[in-house]
């Protein structure tokens, strides 16, 4: 079995666990939905100012539930002791990173896409060709988010304060992703001319490449059992 096969085997294991219980999936999705609703009640949905801020609201609804998912990703592994089994297998630690990352990314993508559908319905954004750009933005930003998140999730997984520690570590690092995603989707959703969209996509791609590589390189130091 090649490296890619191993990565997929690991990711498939995680995804199958998620698929079996489905509880975590619906909880995360419901949390996203709740955030959208809370913002809808907090700001007047009919006012144009809320509409201008809507892309920001969408990304808050994507990021906060994302942190919860990343926290769970390693927590169950530690609790069940399955991580030790994975670590004992004669496998490059970097491949383990890619396996966990892939599972997180796919999970987040599914939740994010469903949230996007709910968002566009609730905030009355018409389905158009521009929506395809939204898909690209979600694809790229959730990639960077899960890369750093998988690394930090592994770090905090056996700490008592992990629930609060993970966002504290993650949010400052992903500020470029948030900036790029929110500003990019503002252009896409509010039908402005695409003046800066490609710059934002470039930022996202740069972040993704750099942090996938960096997380892959340092991952072995955060999972060593000591």
């Amino acid at each position, binding site marked *: 079995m090649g490296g890619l096969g191993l990565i997929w085997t690991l990711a498939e294991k995680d995804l199958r666990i998620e698929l079996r219980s489905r509880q975590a999936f619906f909880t995360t999705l419901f949390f996203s939905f709740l955030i959208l609703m809370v913002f809808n009640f907090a700001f007047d949905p009919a006012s144009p100012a809320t509409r201008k801020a809507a892309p920001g609201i969408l990304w808050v609804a994507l990021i906060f539930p994302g942190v919860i998912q990343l926290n769970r990703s390693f927590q169950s592994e530690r609790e069940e002791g399955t991580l030790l089994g994975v670590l004992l297998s004669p496998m490059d630690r970097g491949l383990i990173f890619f396996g966990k990352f892939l599972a997180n990314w796919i999970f987040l993508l599914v939740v994010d896409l469903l949230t996007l559908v709910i968002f566009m319905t609730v905030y009355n954004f018409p389905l158009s060709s521009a929506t395809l750009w939204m898909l690209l933005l979600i694809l790229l930003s959730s990639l960077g988010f899960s890369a*750093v998140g998988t*690394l930090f999730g592994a*770090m905090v997984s056996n*700490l008592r304060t992990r629930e609060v520690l993970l966002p504290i570590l993650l949010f400052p690092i992903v500020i470029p992703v948030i900036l790029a995603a929110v*500003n990019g989707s503002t252009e896409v959703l509010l039908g402005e001319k695409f003046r800066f969209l490609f710059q934002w996509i470039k*930022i996202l791609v740069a972040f993704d490449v750099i942090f996938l590589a960096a997380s892959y390189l*340092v991952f072995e*130091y955060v999972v*060593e059992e*000591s």
Partner: protein
Amino acid sequence: MWSKNLDSDRQAIRRYTAWAGRLLAPAYVLGALALYAAFLYAPTERVMGDVQRIFYFHVGSAWNAFLAFLVVFLASIAYLKTGRIKWDQLAVASTEVGVVFTTITLVTGSIWAKPIWFTWWPWGDPRVTTTLVLWLMYVSYLILRSSLPEGDQKYKFCAVLGIVGFINVPIVWMSIRWWRTHHPVVITSSGMNLEARMVHALFISVFAFAALYAALLCLRTSMRLQERLTQEMEVEVMAK
């Protein structure tokens, strides 16, 4: 693990303490010179007036905060490569001093922005906002540090964060610059014309902060190593 490196770590303590002592006097003298240069030697800026004199210490601490985080980055790599505790202690000492300097930079920047741009927080300036993100990242480093149990794992995690945080800086910088370019920016600090004497004052102040940084770094590293050594000896004595 510790006792193997005991002698070399004792040497490191002695070296760092000696350097801290050696650097304190130059830091003091340069600091006094920098005060003189900022308040008396440098001419008053024509547009902003005397408030502009904040600039010298503001930039002095900003540049050295950045230097401090570069040291964190390099020491973190050295720690992961060698596993030697002194590198970890150097990294965390540098983070600490860097956060103090960044705090100085942010607060003085904010005070300077109020009379010049009529706002306490100049979001229009990408440098100030990038510094804010730096501050957030390294404060989270210190929070992580305080919440991990003592041991190799703690040092490794912190080293990872020290590396990941630093390589993020260029991306943060680019994204914030582009973010602000679509919003109207009234004035940026780059429009300032620096006379020769102002440049001199700036550099004296940068060197003063550099000397202060070096002295504090050596002092904190030596103290941290001593603390570890004490802890090791306590464990050893209690076990007997």
